[in-house]
């Protein structure tokens, strides 16, 4: 709660929170907000601001199949938020639990878990995505799996480092001498103290996963068409971008804005975490 109060005092964090809230609302109320069906053909390659045959406005124009770009953008918010939060949640569950175990117990368990993490980190991320998606096919579930493999080792490392540090604090020693169990120490003593840095990483990773969903869409490895997906929209419009820049510019702005918001939020959280440890 103290963290939240501190966030509200920072303008960049406020901006981040606002964008996140607006994105969330857009995703939730997409069917109400979107003026058109995102899959329906209206007027192929209509320019922004033009009027559809039925008299409605196409504020951001239509794509090469005549689908309303604004509506696809709005429904695309759903896609990106849904899959990136699922994927981030999966990476965090795996990374945090393994990191806690490795950092707290150390020894052979740590060596083994760290080796697995380092093996996965030895793959350049895009390469990992390509291997997993080509082996198992392009689908939402496989995006979650791919992102978990790529992202969990990073979370693992952060959690492990924090656990290693906090394990040597005197309050953990006190808990041990009180006969507290290992599980209780991890849950009661270590995890609460890792909350702020983990939250900072969570924001950043949520943004990066959104980008990943975009990149996979852009590379044609994302969700199969015709799902509205920002990265996919760029990929589809890329070759016609010279004549019709509106096909690609809006999804690019949307994803950049979302990522910027998450970065600013993460940065503010890191500042708070730093200030907190100093005080």
């Amino acid at each position: 709660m103290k963290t939240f109060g501190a966030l509200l005092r920072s303008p960049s964090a406020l901006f981040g929170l606002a964008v996140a809230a607006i994105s969330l609302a857009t995703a939730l109320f997409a069917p109400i907000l979107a003026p058109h069906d995102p899959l329906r053909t209206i007027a192929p390659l209509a320019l922004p601001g033009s009027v559809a045959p039925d008299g409605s406005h196409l504020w951001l124009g239509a794509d090469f199949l005549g689908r309303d770009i604004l509506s696809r953008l709005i429904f695309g918010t759903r896609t990106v938020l849904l899959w990136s939060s699922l994927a981030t949640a999966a990476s965090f569950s795996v990374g945090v639990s393994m990191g806690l175990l490795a950092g707290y117990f150390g020894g052979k368990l740590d060596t083994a878990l760290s080796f697995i993490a380092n093996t996965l980190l030895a793959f350049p991320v895009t390469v990992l995505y390509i291997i997993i998606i080509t082996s198992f096919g392009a689908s939402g579930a496989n995006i979650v799996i791919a992102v978990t493999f790529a992202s969990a080792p990073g979370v693992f490392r952060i959690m492990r480092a924090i656990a290693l540090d906090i394990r040597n604090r005197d309050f953990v020693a006190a808990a041990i001498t009180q006969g507290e169990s290992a599980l209780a120490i991890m849950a009661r003593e270590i995890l609460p103290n890792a909350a702020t840095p983990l939250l900072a990483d969570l924001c950043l990773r949520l943004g990066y996963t959104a980008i990943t969903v975009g990149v996979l869409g852009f590379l044609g490895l994302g969700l199969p068409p015709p799902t509205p997906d920002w990265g996919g929209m760029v990929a589809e419009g890329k070759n016609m971008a010279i004549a019709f820049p509106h096909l690609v510019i809006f999804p690019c702005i949307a994803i950049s804005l979302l990522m910027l918001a998450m970065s600013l939020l993460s940065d503010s959280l890191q500042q708070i975490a730093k200030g907190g440890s100093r005080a």
Partner: protein
Amino acid sequence: MKAEGAAPLLRVRDLSVTLPQGADRRFAVEEASFELSGGEIMCVVGESGSGKSVLSSAIMGAAPTGLKVASGSILFRGEDIVRMGEAKLRKLRGNQIAMVFQEPMAALNPAVKVGEQIEEVFTLHSRLAPRERRERVKALLSDTRLPDPDRIAQSYSHQLSGGQCQRVVIAMALAMSPALLIADEPTSALDVTTQAQVLKLMRELRDEHGHAVLFITHDFGVVAEVADRVAVMQAGRIVEIGDKRTVLDAPRHPYTQKLIASVPRAEPRPASALKPDAEPSLVISHLAKSYRVGGQSVTALKDASLALDKGRTLGIVGESGSGKSTLARVAIRLTPADRGAVRVGGVDLAKLGGKALARARRKIQMIFQDPYGSLNPRHSVGAILTRAGRLGGKPGAEARESAIELLRLVGLKPEAFARKPHEFSGGQRQRIGIARALAMNPEVVFADECVSALDVSVQAQVLRLIADLQARLDLTLVFITHDLRVAAQVSDYIAVMRQGEIVEFGGAEEVLKRPRHPYTRELIAAAPGRNWTPPVLETPE
């Protein structure tokens, strides 16, 4: 000593330094006035937050960021440092006024050889040729009694010990034969024996060079050792200033009196006989521990044996690396022992494991050194104490009640229950730490340097509390400290440790008054201010 004529070297007049808004008071330093003449050592004593360090930075013309000199003047040889430009200040710093810092290792650049760092002073302030500069560096290093100056000059700071680093820093400070040396807690981070050597060196160098020294410290023992004059600071104000003997032996200001009354008296209790019939409360036998460091085995504790009767206090004294903390951590089973036994109430903790160990842990508890690191910042004080009570075997409601009772017992208000640790001062946190240890209803309590992070007046209160609780609850106490005065005040028995070994163990009076081991003698001789006995004062408390 150089004659500076009638005018003093440094004349501080009504100096006030403002704190940033939102601080607990307006001024870090408030209307401070004093004078300092050549060849004189003046100690500025005060507790943390008294403004003594800010005062020293202001004299260097470098108040910490956010702080501003609001009024007053600092006349150095007649020129006002407060109104001096940056270029002029640079010519002064390191040249006519030099500084020695608290953390000698951190004060040296890790990436530059220490010889080059001293040489830089000449580069900045003289026109000496490179060859001459290097000669002077060597001369300075041997002046500070460093062995093999050639090798030292070629070393990096991490290759030297703390004491050696501080000598290098002193050599650097004295390079241009400054008229004023400012030393900010220069020995607080050093071991007792090293501290004694560095204090001796600083006095000798003053005698040789005749520079004035402004010596910031919190330790009255150190004051007794080095000062000519003393200024006492409280909340930014200089409350008393005068000759060393007068201030130390006949303080006039109530605050000075309170501080001096808090200094532990190095008067050990008379020996009390061991109870021959009863089984001792704590028996440590042949305890050993070694660590593997980079493929080599380092012995941290070898074959330690002790026994302590119920309700008695054992002081364990030693310098850093002596193994006294390892002994504590092994005894309470934070780290497993290689060999040996720890018997508490007849049960060998070193042999237990799993559930049996978790249950037996209750009997032996610890009060930790760092009041800031020993309480989980995320839990309220009540939650911490209640949890300890429940782990000690009490049911929920009872644990909660006893937590409130414990708060009262350690002198905290019941409102503390709902607060988080960060809302408390260091001394209060230490009380919470004590309450937590007691919540388990232990038989033996280890206290690892539990008052060394506290100011002297708070330290006195916490020591009194511990003694009081011990008498009331008939606790067996093992008190680990580097401070002989503290050990003398609290202990029935004293064990002296060096390099993982207990070199002497006996009744407190016997060990301190008639030490047998040469190392104990060395330690006693090194204790700062051993020739000064704090006067018995009628304190306002």
